[in-house]
């Protein structure tokens, strides 16, 4: 392992906001950083190596220690239950997990079918509600499931609610708020305590100052 701190970044929705936050925290990420199609980007000046991963995989890279630190949504953390430290709420990419369905849809009386990208979260939620359900795992376009009759309801993240609306779905229950978190590998947390503590400290200052403006 080199002396660079390896940071696992989620591709897609969270990426841009996370990069912005790192810049505000004083890490010199070059302007072309976002446009690169590379999966591994080393930035010596920042003392960091970034790996670009699928959001759902970020906690896996961090748990195995190939990345020291990662940025992951709480939704992914709940679903994956990886053995990593969750040290800072970045308060970016706000959204929430919700149950949604067609407005007039009658729920199947014995075991309603729930389509979701988050089978663990969904199973856990309905168990806590004392409801018996059948979970169907899908990998995307979850909204399709109730429209075409695969499932009675869906569990998915909602940010603006536009996708639901455009497909004629309504939100039925809110499960919980979701934001992105800094996660840390347990070994790195000790072996590279200095660099990691500084990263967390600098980011938490940025997060706090944003909170005050709000």
């Amino acid at each position, binding site marked *: 392992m080199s002396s660079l701190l390896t940071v696992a970044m989620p591709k897609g929705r969270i990426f841009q906001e996370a990069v912005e936050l790192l810049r505000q925290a004083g890490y010199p990420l070059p302007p072309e950083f976002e446009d690169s199609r590379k999966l591994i980007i080393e930035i010596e000046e920042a003392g960091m190596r970034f790996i670009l991963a699928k959001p759902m995989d970020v906690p896996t890279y961090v748990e195995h220690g190939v990345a020291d630190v990662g940025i992951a949504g709480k939704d992914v953390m709940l679903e994956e239950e990886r053995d*990593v*430290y969750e040290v800072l709420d970045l308060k970016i990419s706000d959204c929430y997990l919700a149950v949604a369905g067609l407005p007039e849809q009658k729920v199947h009386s014995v075991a309603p079918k729930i389509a979701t990208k988050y089978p663990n979260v969904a199973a856990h939620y309905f168990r806590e509600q004392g409801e018996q359900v059948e979970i169907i795992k899908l990998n995307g376009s979850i909204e399709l499931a109730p429209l075409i009759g695969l499932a009675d309801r869906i569990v998915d993240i909602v940010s603006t609610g536009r996708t639901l609306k455009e497909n004629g779905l309504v939100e039925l229950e809110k499960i919980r708020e979701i934001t992105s*978190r800094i996660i840390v590998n*347990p*070994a790195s947390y*000790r072996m590279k*305590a200095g660099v990691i*503590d500084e990263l967390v400290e600098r980011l938490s200052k940025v997060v706090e100052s944003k909170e005050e403006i709000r």
Partner: protein
Amino acid sequence: MSKPFVFEKPMGMRDTLPVLYQVKQQVRTVMEQEIREWGYQFIQTPTLEYYDTVGEASAILDQQLFKLLDSEGKTLVLRPDMTAPIARVVSSSMKDVSYPIRLAYDSAVFRSQQREGGRPAEFEQVGVELIGDGTSSADAEVIALMVSTLSKTGLQEFKVAVGHIGFLNELFVEVLGNEDRAEELLRFLYEKNYVGYASHVKSLPLSSIDKKRLLDLLHLRGGEEVLKSAEDLTAVGGRKAISDLRELLNILALYGVQDKVVLDFTLFSHMSYYTGIVFEGYTNELGFPLCSGGRYDQLLGEFGRSAQAIGFGIRLDYLLEALSAKEPSAPRSCIIFSAENRKEAIAKSRELREQGRSVVVQDISGVGNVDEYSGRFQEVIYVIGKSGKGEAR
């Protein structure tokens, strides 16, 4: 479910092939010798234990236990750790041996894996238990021995994080008033969820000073200076723990291993098992802790012979990974003979073995492809033909 393929093994089970076996053996020998030099005696216990005794008492979560039934219908477990079996032995077969007792082990333990089937469900652990001594000297001895054992294997960069369960319990009860509320907070630490911890603390009906005390706890990581910060957090609770830790650091300095140790008051690796200091060892090469341990003063009581006790366990598989296993150094020789020279071949092999060499004696008519076969050895000696003269190639 379909039948397994003939070459399949149960999930998480691994074969150890010759090269790895030798490397493992070398590391194991080094560790055993070091532990023996510190006066610890090795013991072995059965692979199977009762669920109701060792299974229940063990620190390993119920869902990780391999369970099976014996012919009487009693539930058995494959031993998930060695600490509980040793507690059983000390309370039964060794009940007349007075405390303190220093025991060591090198055994396979079994933990079923829910996630990603390739993770080992059986792995070897090397460790010690110091039973019947509750002093800081015992704490320090066990940590120093662990550090020394790891160093002897050639592991260079590693750190041992040390925390104290007594400190956490007392601080939380002092601030929150009762153990139920303390347990809620401990669970966040156990789950390594500091975000959840912080937002839970902020939601509690506490004074801002008390909230700050609880939030500052998350920063109590580092060297000796952390003890001072810890003192500022507590009124009375946890003072004993802090002075224990201070003494521990002083003794570790006498052993010359203080530079390997960092304090970490947030370390909380089990909900109810450990009672005093806890520790975990990490290295740069590895994402997981390669060793861990702590003080468990309740366990022996469950077997009817109460005692304070402390121990550590090192995972041999992780250690080998961290050492990036070298090729074994012991070369092998081969004597290839034809039937009429059998006598000379055997005499020659005896001679070489007496010099400590590892020698294969192979009848040439038992080998298909002699060139391919002899290629596996560092040295090949042919004892063939009428002359019966050994000819080395």
